[in-house]
């Protein structure tokens, strides 16, 4: 890749661009709802019940973390498996992962009753038999790791050469540590559901649900990398270090990876239904919905990825990546909301309030806005010209 992309001064553009106005509006409304939540409590802002205490926000916690897999997916490919051609996408992917975890932590703070006690498991009394303890520990460590992975960007900006050199030298260590932590907590997020075998519709419940979660996070991570490439090209094309042809080439490669990941995930899901002999559950409304998820948003992406790779069609691969991301979102919301408490009568089931949706949209807008701001100001899309390419 070339290290000669021009560093244009952060061109802020007009303040009242359509994006800024829309984002500002969403952030204002969402921020207001968040304030209301902290003033009146969860009862005001959400439709949570004593029976369904984890709702849309928890569903999106799972989504944010699953899609934040872009960071470990790409750092592993580049730094561990030596696929150096993907290097231009590493920083966009790690930054996106970092944003994903940031949103996770924010929505956690909104959702927790006493978020100010978050350090308690570590400083007061650890509950080590809890899956949540492992998640808290791993997410805390991984969030820190991702931050450290991004420090070279900051050191380049403030021109601290020696610090940058030290941070870059630790890249492989961070990558290994990060992947280990991701394998742990991505899977353990699935393990949250192990304890409710009677509450989750059997097709979504499995002793292997941790494996499902990890596999689908790979799917989500790869698909996010494709979409990030597209976003970088569409929005910041002139700042992006790689040419359109090169990006298409990488997208096709990611399509191949995506085909493999979705195929493995699909097989794991099929094996699960076969192992438990749950075929008869497919012939029910929820069973059909399961088929929509698995055939429409896992198997179909597998085939489209493979076709797009074979026919070298980056556009198709980008479309497929969008489907795969929808599939991951669908899966997380299905297991945590749609298939959860399926035995309860409809009147006692949980349906999110409009404010819950607003907060989710607020967070996504916030994430995109901050991402845009960082990309505009820092060397994310190109190698900083003052330094050798950092790989």
């Amino acid at each position: 890749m070339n290290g000669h992309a021009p560093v244009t001064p952060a061109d802020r553009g007009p303040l009242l661009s359509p994006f800024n106005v829309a984002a500002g509006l969403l952030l204002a409304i969402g921020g207001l709802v968040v304030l209301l939540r902290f003033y009146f409590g969860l009862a005001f802002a959400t439709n949570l019940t004593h029976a369904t205490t984890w709702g849309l926000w928890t569903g999106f916690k799972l989504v944010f973390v699953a899609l934040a897999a872009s960071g470990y997916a790409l750092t592993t490919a580049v730094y561990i498996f030596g696929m150096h051609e993907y290097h231009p996408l590493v920083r966009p992917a790690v930054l996106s992962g970092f944003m994903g975890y940031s949103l996770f932590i924010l929505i956690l703070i909104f959702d927790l009753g006493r978020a100010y006690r978050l350090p308690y498991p570590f400083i007061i009394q650890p509950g080590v038999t809890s899956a949540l303890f492992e998640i808290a520990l791993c997410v805390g460590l991984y969030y820190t790791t991702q931050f450290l992975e991004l420090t070279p960007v900051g050191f380049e900006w403030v021109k601290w050469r020696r610090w940058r050199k030290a941070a870059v030298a630790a890249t492989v260590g961070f990558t290994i540590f990060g992947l280990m932590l991701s394998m742990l907590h991505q899977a353990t997020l699935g393990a949250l559901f192990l304890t409710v075998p009677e509450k989750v519709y059997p097709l979504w419940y499995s002793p292997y649900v941790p494996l499902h979660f990890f596999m689908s996070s790979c799917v989500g991570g790869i698909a996010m990398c494709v979409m990030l490439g597209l976003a970088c090209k569409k929005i910041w094309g002139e700042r992006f270090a790689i040419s359109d042809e090169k990006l298409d080439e990488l997208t096709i490669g990611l399509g191949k990876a995506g085909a493999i990941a979705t195929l493995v995930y699909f097989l794991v899901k099929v094996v699960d239904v076969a192992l438990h002999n749950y075929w008869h559950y497919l012939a029910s409304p929820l069973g059909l919905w399961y088929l929509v998820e698995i055939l429409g948003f896992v198997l179909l992406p597998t085939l489209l990825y493979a076709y797009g790779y074979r026919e070298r069609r980056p556009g198709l691969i980008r479309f497929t990546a969008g489907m795969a991301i929808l599939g991951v979102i669908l899966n997380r919301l299905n297991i945590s909301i749609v298939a959860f408490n399926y035995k309860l009568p409809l009147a006692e089931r949980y349906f999110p309030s409009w404010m819950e949706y607003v907060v989710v949209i607020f967070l996504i807008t916030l994430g995109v806005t901050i991402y845009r701001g960082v990309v505009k100001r820092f060397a994310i899309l190109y190698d900083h010209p003052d330094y050798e390419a950092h790989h």
Partner: protein
Amino acid sequence: MTISRRGFITGAVVGSLGLAGAARAGSGVHLFEGHPGRKGLLHDTTLCVGCRSCEFACNEVNKLPVPKAPINDKAIFSARRGINDKLYTVVNKYAEGGGRRPPVYRKHQCMHCNEPCCASVCFVKAFVKTPEGPVLYDPDLCVGCRYCLFACPYYALAYEYNEPLAPKVVRCTMCYPRIKEGKNPACADACPTGAIVYGKRGDLVRMARDRIRKFPGRYFDHIFGEHEYGGTSWLTVSGLAPGRLDLPENIVHEPLPNLTTGFLTLAPLVTAIIPGLLAGFYAFTKRRDHLHEEALRRELARFARERADEVEKALSAARAQAARDLERAVERGRRTGRLEAVREAAEAAKPEPPKEGGAR
């Protein structure tokens, strides 16, 4: 099984090893049959008349508002009610009476499991199973994640959703303070028909068995809570199967926490295996890249040598040619006698120097 001090310290320092310790403790529970002499309660629905005295007594003891519907208001049974933060126990009707059969009511509340799932999933250990039987909750530790509500198979916990900044999980405490004073739980004392009996859990199980044996027509042959998910302190006997009483049916005898601890034992293994494995992959990649680079360098060197040889050959051929040309020109000049022609020819025959930037 003992944990050495060093093991304990290491576990405290490294979270993953802490998990390992927990997993070991978790696997040890198979041998633990529960605190001997622990207390429990038996609800015999065949004696329950649905007066909801227990609800009123519970709310009074727990300083909760008096239930809105007055005692003996049967209209309240038209809709199923769940427990909530203002009602820790709730009586529902599950079958209409008819002929000589009375209606069936069941009281619901925290079951005080032998192996409480709420306790095992709490990441600050805010729940403890006391030797006396009740499962207690410490609001001073609670972070408000509500994993306990999520995990409870009996929907027996409630949360103060109205509290913006300091909500608690609330539920039946089996009247732990009263038990400590030597009193019965309030609901047992309030029950006018003796449908709720408080005592040692072992005695209650025997009592329930006796009743089922003596009146087989009256009871469905099952004591709910004897074995479900490792057993509970609240036991229920009824004329109906548990499934018709909104209780989970045909569930395993294995404690629920085991479903998670089995997986969590993998965590220390992952921390042990993955770094080394990935470092191995990295070393492999590095070596592959290194070998690749070496091969490339060798290839380049060979190519350069070949090019140099070619250039050398071409150069000497050109020199020889130039010498011959010069000789011929000199000969021609001598023949014609024109010195200028000789000089011109000599100039023209000079070999050109090799170009800059060519193969070295």
